[in-house]
């Protein structure tokens, strides 16, 4: 084994380590990115779970914000919060998940949660009405019960009975890129 051979072998091994080191770097970046995404998903789900527990229009009633039909909460520089006897909704800038603040390795990145509440018109495309008199006259022939279809008619349109909740979690990752994660849900106003 000559010196040249040895040097050549060591060089080949050294060069072959370069992609391994590159993969390790990429892995660390990917892990950090995924960790932030998972935190954002958990944060968004936690907040949305709380949002959905409030009664219809309850967040707007407690949080204020004008006449609508769209209300936005949590976009200010300070934290926004409303609370009932059993629920606390905290929006705006937060440091990771509030329950894990005691963990010193947790909280390196800050998130922002924003909620937009919007009145959503509700329209049924098909409403089948029947005629009670014709049904009584033809009890065994349902085709003759006077069915009429109120396709997209005013009788099938409703307002003030459904709201759209859009929850957005924003953060800045290690590459200084703005990231966001959003959830959308609808809540209807049931008749009591």
């Amino acid at each position, binding site marked *: *084994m*000559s010196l040249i*051979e040895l040097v*050549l*072998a*060591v060089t*080949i*091994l050294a*060069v*072959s*380590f370069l*992609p*391994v080191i*590159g*993969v390790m770097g*990429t*892995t660390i970046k*990917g892990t950090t990115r*995924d960790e932030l*995404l*998972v935190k954002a*998903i958990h944060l*968004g*789900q936690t907040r*949305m779970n709380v949002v959905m527990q409030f009664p219809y229009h309850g967040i707007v009633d407690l949080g204020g914000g004008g006449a609508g039909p769209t209300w936005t909460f949590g976009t200010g520089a300070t934290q926004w919060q409303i609370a009932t006897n059993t629920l606390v909704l905290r929006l705006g800038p937060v440091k990771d998940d509030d329950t894990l603040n005691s963990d010193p390795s947790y909280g390196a990145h800050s998130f922002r949660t924003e909620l937009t509440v919007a009145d959503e018109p*509700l*329209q*049924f*495309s*098909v*409403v*089948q*009405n*029947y005629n009670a008199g014709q*049904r009584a006259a033809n009890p*065994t*022939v*349902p*085709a003759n*019960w006077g*069915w009429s*279809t109120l396709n997209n008619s005013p009788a099938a349109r409703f307002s003030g*009975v*459904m709201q759209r909740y*859009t929850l957005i979690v924003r953060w800045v990752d290690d590459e200084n*890129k*703005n*990231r*966001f*994660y*959003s*959830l*959308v*849900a*609808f*809540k*209807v*106003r*049931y*008749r009591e």
Partner: protein
Amino acid sequence: MAIQNMTFRRRGTAVAMALVFATILLLMAIGFVRQLRQAHPQNRLIDERVKVELLANSAIDKAILKFQLFQGDYYAAVAASKLGYHQPLQDFFINDTGLRYVNFGDASSSFSNHTIGVVIASVSLLTDWKWNTEALRIIANVTYTDSVGRNVDKDVVRIVKLDRRLNTPWGP
């Protein structure tokens, strides 16, 4: 002479071994990258599951509200269906496009922007005459293409207990 031949044969062994090791390292790196790519969609699965269930429950909520608003017509449609005339019942929930979400993509993120489709697949009136109890079983069918290109089909079911009584209009 024999010693010289042995030395001659062993020339290049280190380079060959280094090449073998380098190849093994490269293969390990490639395998690791592939493994990472496969592990990555787990986060997406969690994300998709939440979005899908929120949207499906929204469609179910709308169906329940429609039942509350037009319950007389619904019961008539059920009665008609029992007599063999199914069209009104079919139209009431299944054919109502107002209860559907088609290519819904509003719940997007920096990482995914797939669309979700939700339809009301079936609504059944479950009756227990013995206990004089009724329930409405609503099944919402969700379809979407996940982050690795697979078509996902999922049912979300909700059963609500019914209580027949006179309703008053909404308050102010």
